[in-house]
């Protein structure tokens, strides 16, 4: 990959809505996509009408439509977050073993997941804080992390206390090893490849400043072949 980092310095960081829109922009038309629970679910609101993106939900459906309201609510038709949704024309239902064959078997083009931490090698930690009183729950995160053709992660780059969430080694238990392809954050878009992590884009911060704030080796894409 060659070219320069795109720095958007005339603005601040992306807000949550803008971040979801930024992720949506990189989802190819016509792809099969799974959006994780929580913030990734909001990416659906930013997909272009007519993009032909087909949404998969782990609890057994392709062709999932928007959230159900009013009379549309049917408790037998829910998404992975257990919220009522709708079905689009051409939808299909299937059981859990088939649903996870879709996820694990490399049939999904893109999945979008949230994260506690991502390492410079693309390791993902998003299921457990490891705290002694925490009740662990993993759901389908580990299957998605290793199964989708492209794994996108969205999170803020820094925790509320300023600690970076892109780290040299994850301190939280891992969800998957070296599985992240793209990291979308409020201040930077970062790609992971065989040679490591590289900043593609920044928002409201210079790439050189970002390098100072992170304890992670970042490839300079402008110098790459």
């Amino acid at each position, binding site marked *: 990959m060659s070219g320069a980092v795109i720095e958007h310095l005339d603005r601040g960081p992306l807000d949550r809505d803008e971040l979801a829109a930024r992720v949506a922009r990189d989802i190819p038309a016509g792809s099969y996509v799974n959006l994780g629970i929580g913030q990734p679910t909001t990416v659906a609101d930013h997909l272009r009408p007519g993009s032909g993106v087909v949404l998969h*939900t*782990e*609890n*057994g*459906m392709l062709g999932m439509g928007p959230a159900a309201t009013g009379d549309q609510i*049917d*408790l*037998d*038709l*829910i998404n992975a977050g*257990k919220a009522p949704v709708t*079905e689009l024309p051409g939808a299909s*239902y*299937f*059981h*859990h*073993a088939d*649903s*996870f064959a879709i*996820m*694990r078997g490399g049939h999904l083009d893109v999945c979008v997941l949230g994260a506690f931490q991502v390492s410079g090698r693309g390791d993902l930690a998003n299921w*457990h804080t490891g705290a002694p*009183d925490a*009740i*662990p*729950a*993993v*759901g*389908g*995160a*580990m*299957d998605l992390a*290793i*199964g989708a053709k492209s794994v996108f992660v969205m999170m803020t780059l820094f925790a509320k206390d300023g600690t970076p969430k892109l780290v040299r080694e994850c301190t939280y*238990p*891992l*969800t*998957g*090893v070296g599985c992240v392809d793209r990291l979308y954050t409020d201040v930077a878009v970062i790609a992971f490849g065989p040679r490591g992590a590289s900043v593609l884009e920044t928002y409201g911060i210079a790439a050189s400043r970002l390098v100072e704030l992170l304890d992670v080796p970042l490839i300079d894409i402008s110098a790459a072949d």
Partner: protein
Amino acid sequence: MTEICATTDEAVAGIEDGATVLVGGFGLAGMPSALIDALIRQGATNLTVVCNNAGNGDTGLAALLAAGRVRKVVCSFPRQSDSWVFDRLYREGRIELELVPQGNLAERMRAAGAGIGAFYCPTGAGTLLAEGKETRVIDGREYVLEHPIHGDVALVKAHVADRMGNLVYRKTARNFGPVMATAATSTIVEVHRLVEPGALDPEVVVTPGIFVDRVVVTGDQGDPA
């Protein structure tokens, strides 16, 4: 042959103390609530429950847990906004948890039903949930050896059954039902409706009657269709 039971109490008769019970449902969609209520009345205890979640609110599976009848839960996502019954028992050390990635939960039951001795799966490789498990590198990728989960009993909710035990489900309430039906020594199904043989199109049957031991009609209660 499939037995048609007059009541849910008849349907759950004979479930023994210490049994492993596969319980269908993803959240409340597909949850066999009438059979769980019958199991609470029936009295079997020291159970191992295999279910995606560990109960919602105070009814159904949560009520079975609250009654102190479950020794161990095998599930992928116990922690939910309304999982206070499980959370309390877990924090008090009164219930054992085996946390299983959701796809492994489905596939391990599929393996049990399909006569597979064990299988290598990439999900969870290099994580806490693979610790102590045998691993193997196949074509350069690490896989984890996963063993089948057999049930003594499966409790499943379907939409319609015929008297042969053939089942169809409804929307995302299908989820684990078809897989669990194959994986238990005795599969007990609650349905909204029972029809005569020939009334279901054989092309649309999801679970063939050979996997179904007992059927009980619980009517359209909670069925929005």
